[in-house]
């Protein structure tokens, strides 16, 4: 079914009786050309691009819970391409371009809103670091504008410019940055993949990966064995466990990242804003809730829930930066499980097992990567060649030290990225 304003109108006039399922609930087949383990944003987009761009439609996505139930349904919805290091630059730039055509491509309104993302700086050194980053963004063909304090004030006059611990020196504005409706991204890709013949199989947990003589043969699941020529592992938050099924030990430590949303409020924050001195970022959803987050809780965790110290710290950052949000009330907090790597950048690569591919380590930057990650991973799975925008996301870079992409420059301690 094609969605349009006309369709909504017609259904409305006829009692909304004609709507059909967004996707089917097929039984797993005995064999597929490719299996994607993980029905999150990245897995669904991988399946979509396998079908759309590589003609690979005999594909199944295996999801142990419900599709879109992982981090794609549990984040702060920020979409941006403002990375500072080669490797990340070209990838996120590619991803943002896919975002910009996503609604037309998927025939699904993911509410991608390019409202602008503003990163604030609070010292000369930070401003210079932003200049370096902005220059990298421009070199990549993306947009960046370095604002001074008055420039920031004109844009967001409600920040505290006069009485704050870390005064605002300026900011880096990324006009094409913004937000999207997170769930809709998963649903849009799921619907698109389903329409192209991909089987989305929910409530199907992978319990083993079948490997013979170094070649992948299929997977064991709670719904029986399924054979496959190729298997892609895209299971943020459980990467270490699934990789262990193939005998791999990953450079990943899992951490919890909390996020928060307030009650609905009339429009008051029109951009995505991030504080430079206390890891705090905020935007306002179309429903009116202030959506914000901060740093990891900093201890390894699979609990998808956090604790008070970081929750309070995040709100303290909010209060020193923009004390006008004080009377907004937090309605809900949640936690996602992040694959933290030793350089804070992701992994899209083959493995030593033929036919087994790995997509993991998105730390807490995975949401904006959804289109690019699926696109590049599908390319790798279908052709066996690394896709240019993601060519540096190699698994062995830690061992060799080649092309490390340590944006935070905090080194090999996983939780510091």
């Amino acid at each position, binding site marked *: 079914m094609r969605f*349009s304003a006309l369709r909504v109108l017609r259904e409305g006039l006829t009692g909304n009786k004609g709507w059909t399922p967004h996707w089917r609930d097929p039984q797993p087949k005995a064999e597929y050309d490719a299996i994607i383990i993980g029905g999150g944003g990245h897995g669904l987009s991988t399946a979509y691009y396998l079908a759309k761009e590589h003609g690979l439609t005999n594909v199944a996505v295996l999801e142990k819970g419900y599709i879109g139930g992982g981090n794609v349904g549990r984040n702060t919805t920020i979409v941006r391409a403002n990375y500072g290091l080669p490797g990340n630059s070209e990838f996120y730039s590619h991803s943002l371009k896919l975002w910009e055509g996503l609604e037309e491509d998927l025939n699904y309104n993911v*509410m991608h809103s390019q409202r602008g993302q503003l990163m604030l700086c609070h010292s000369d050194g930070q401003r210079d670091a932003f200049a370096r980053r902005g220059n990298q963004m421009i070199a990549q063909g993306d947009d960046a504008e370095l604002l001074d304090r008055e420039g920031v004030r004109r844009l967001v006059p409600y920040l505290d410019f006069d009485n704050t611990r870390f005064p605002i020196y300026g900011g880096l504005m990324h006009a094409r940055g913004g937000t999207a409706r997170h769930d809709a991204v998963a649903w849009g890709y799921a619907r698109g993949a389903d329409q192209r013949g991909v089987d989305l199989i929910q409530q199907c947990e992978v319990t083993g990966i079948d490997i013979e003589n170094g070649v992948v043969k299929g997977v064991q699941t709670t719904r029986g064995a399924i054979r496959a020529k190729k298997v892609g592992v895209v299971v943020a938050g459980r990467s270490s466990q699934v990789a262990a099924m193939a005998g791999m030990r990953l450079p990943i430590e899992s951490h919890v990242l909390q996020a928060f949303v307030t009650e609905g409020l009339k429009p008051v924050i029109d951009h995505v804003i991030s504080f430079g001195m206390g890891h705090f970022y905020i935007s306002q959803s179309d429903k009116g809730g202030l959506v914000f987050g901060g740093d990891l809780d900093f201890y390894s965790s699979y609990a998808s829930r956090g604790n008070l110290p970081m929750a309070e710290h995040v709100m303290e950052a909010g209060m020193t930066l923009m004390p006008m949000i*004080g009377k907004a009330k937090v309605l809900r907090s949640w936690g996602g499980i992040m694959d933290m790597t030793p350089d804070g950048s992701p992994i899209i690569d083959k493995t030593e097992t033929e036919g087994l591919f790995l997509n993991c380590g998105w730390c807490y930057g995975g949401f904006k990567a959804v289109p690019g990650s699926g696109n590049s991973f599908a390319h790798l799975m279908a052709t066996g060649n690394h896709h240019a925008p993601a060519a540096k996301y190699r698994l062995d870079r830690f061992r060799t030290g080649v092309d490390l992409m340590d944006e935070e420059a905090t080194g090999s301690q996983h939780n510091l990225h």
Partner: protein
Amino acid sequence: MRVAGKGLVNRDKSVTFRFDGVSYTGFEGDTVASALLANGITLMGRSFKYHRPRGVLTAGSEEPNAMVTVGEGAGAEPNVRATVQEIYEGLMVRSQNAWPSLDFDVMAVNDLAAPFLGAGFYYKTFMWPKRFWEAIYEPVIRKAAGLGALSGKHNEDTYEKAFAFCDLLVIGAGPAGLMAALAAGRAGVDVILCDEDMQVGGRLLAESGAVGHLSGADWAASVMAELEAMANVRVMTRTTVTGAYDGGTFGALERVNQHTGKRGGGAPLECFWRIAAKRSVLAAGALERPIAFQNNDRPGVMTAGAVRAYLNRWGVSPGEKVTVFGNNDDAHRTALDLAAAGVHVAALIDSRQGITVEAASFPVIVGAQVCNAAGRKALESVTVRTSAGEQSIQTDCLAVSGGWNPTVHLTCHMNGRPTWREDIQAFVPTAGSIPDMAVAGACDGVFSTLGCLKDGLRAGQEAAEALGKRVVAVDLPVADDAAYALEPLWAVAGKGRAWLDFQNDVSVKDIKQAAVENFRSVEHMKRYTTQGMATDQGKNSNVMALAVLADATGRGIPETGTTTFRPPYGPVAIAAMGAGAQGHGFAPERFTTSHKRSVERGAPMIEAGLWYRPSYFPKAGETTWRQSCDREVGYVRKAVGVCDVSTLGKIDIQGPDAAELLDFVYTNLFSTLQVGRVRYGLMLREDGTVMDDGTCARLGETHYVMTTTTAAAGAVMRHLEFVTQCLHPEWQVAFTSVTEQWAQFAVAGPKARELLNGVLAQPVDGESFPFMGCGPVEVAGVQGRLFRISFSGEHAYEVAVPSRYGASLFDLLLEHAERMGGGAYGMEALNVLRIEKGFITHAEIDGRRTAFDIGAARMISAKKDCVGKTMAARAGLMDEMRPQMVGIKPVDAAAVLSAGAHLYECGAAQVNGNGLGHVTSVGYSPDLGLQIGIAFVARGAARHGDVVRFVDAVRGLETDVEVCAPVFVDPEGGRVRG
């Protein structure tokens, strides 16, 4: 309207407040909701999506409809529940999400378009044309969405945070909670009892039944009196426990002054508590759920328990002719209490067959369902359907009960899932969901008063026993012990829209449509329809919606499952959880001993980590910072400058294995350092990148003082602790941070020795203090330390004295320096001086640099192991194409340089992948008369003399620069040794 002789409000004390500009009177003890109802006001809000008129639904914090804005200006607080906000003299309350008025809201036109605005409609449209989303559709949607508005002004109110500790936290002070606290309190347990209401009692305040020989409210008051008299019990009313966290930690929000409106004077409006408890008892009660039927959202339709609460607690009848509709016995109490109070009961409608109500003075219709309600802004009538057909009943208030849901929320905050109980058609907590938490009373599915008292007593005694206290007998009072019987009824069949989530306007049809579109998982349904995502987080509607979804998908309710319960239980202001941070409270402030002197001299103080340091010291006639900076650079190059360097980390290291520790954490050797000498050291992280640099002085055979950069002081200290505890606990070495204990000043310039000899007891010379020498000195009668080290390339020293003498020494040094044609210099000059010499800061060693990159590969001693040595040898970290540190100077001497610029080959496309490196530091060298910089350039060490293109696109700067050695002044290094 008020009902004579009923209620607990203080009728001797009337209180005046305003709602939407109109003045109303209530009594002390009233909430906004009860006072408005007493004044005959039933329309209190508009719904989120369709702007349907809504009245109050509940009498508690779960209220979804009656959301108001309290206060004016910066103090205005949106989205306050009228059912929680107590009235006080002068209280100003406004309705919200309605324009131009609550009574006439133009956005109500949305309701007419409802057929086109069903579940998920926005995912299917607004896609064309592409650029219309940001330009048109989204702004319109955003403007229509949201409930109340923030003032946009900086917060002016005081909020606080606090810690509390106890052996037993009892959550909820209804019959179960009170008994638990009483039993534990009498046994001597250290108890905190929290309740979100203004007074203890819970449902006892809303019910007419007796406890022992007292009314429920009086019994609660008597227990409260006993608890308050116990030194080991703390009762916190108006305190909502918002979340259960690890290790027995709970969050709680106390509304300290929200009920008085008192501002200022140091009293906080709210306080956010972190309570650490060894054990807890959850006695949070239960929440009543409505029943879905067509137009069940009309103002005047309320939960049956709320109607009873308004009557018994506030002495208010929400209507003149009240109809009661339920599927359980509990609803009957509402009709009986109303009738007993003299309120006209139009009918009691019970969906069950064969039910009789004793002593009913009103019509009882059994086996019947209310299937529609009429009256747009106020309920006028309901339609009742029986097997005999439909009839209309004139009524202005419908009290509805679909049964009770135990308040399981906190038990699910640590990923617990509740358990479905068929007999009460509700979810109850799963035992063990929160470590060391017991559940008692209605929140465990025990619904009679006596049952709650008993259960609370048990929980309190068990907790006391578990905490090692001797259990003390507590008499159980006589109370109602009626059984709770119901037959499930979630949604009445029929046409039209039957509402589930009132605030978000989610109807039964929406849930069914979601199921048809295969949003069958409960999480999918929620996210697709927004069911349960309103400010009540589904407290009133989620179980109904689950039941509808279960029905639509042919599953049972337990298989359908619930969505996830997340903290906070009730909304918490960001200002409360973020209390203390506004303004300067976000991080500690560290001040040097010369801070005040620097400020007095007019120096702008800038943040350096947590420290403040002077940027420059302006002199009369100087109009730009550059003028000051150039002058201060001149002090050091030509005479003598003084700079406070106390912020650098200083770590005192002593013990027989001190040298071994230093050899292990520094790349170079320190065991070979002679006593009385200083050496520059480089430290790596274990991954081979540079962590920090600094000097380390050997004061004695087993005594060193290490300095770190200001930024890395904490990390280095932690690192030393790690090495000595986790890798080499066998080493005999101890260390401590002495950063705060010593004030240290750089004295730099050709006249540095002359200056020092004017203040030291014993003059120094090239022999007693050669370059990189150190030792004790007496300065102005104080025992201090002198280090001949230089960060400027000039003949320089750092002199340290105990901090209490820091300010005096600063004065003394400046007095001498100024007499000698020198003076104080700040961070700007310090930066220029070190760039001129190619000395690095964290601008260069930014966390990605190796010793190889900064030209210090030879500093990694081949003679020993050290942290980071092995990983630094990885091929990727030794690649000659890596950017290496160089100096740069513009080909055009007048060109402006900037840090953060990228470098390209001249003529090459300036695109990602072509970059040679970037500029890390830039300064104007007065000596050279041009801007110079430090940069990292691929194969830089081999490219001195090459011209490359400098591009700072974000600043609009582009010019040719020459790559050179990163030393611009005195490359031979003669001055420093002179």
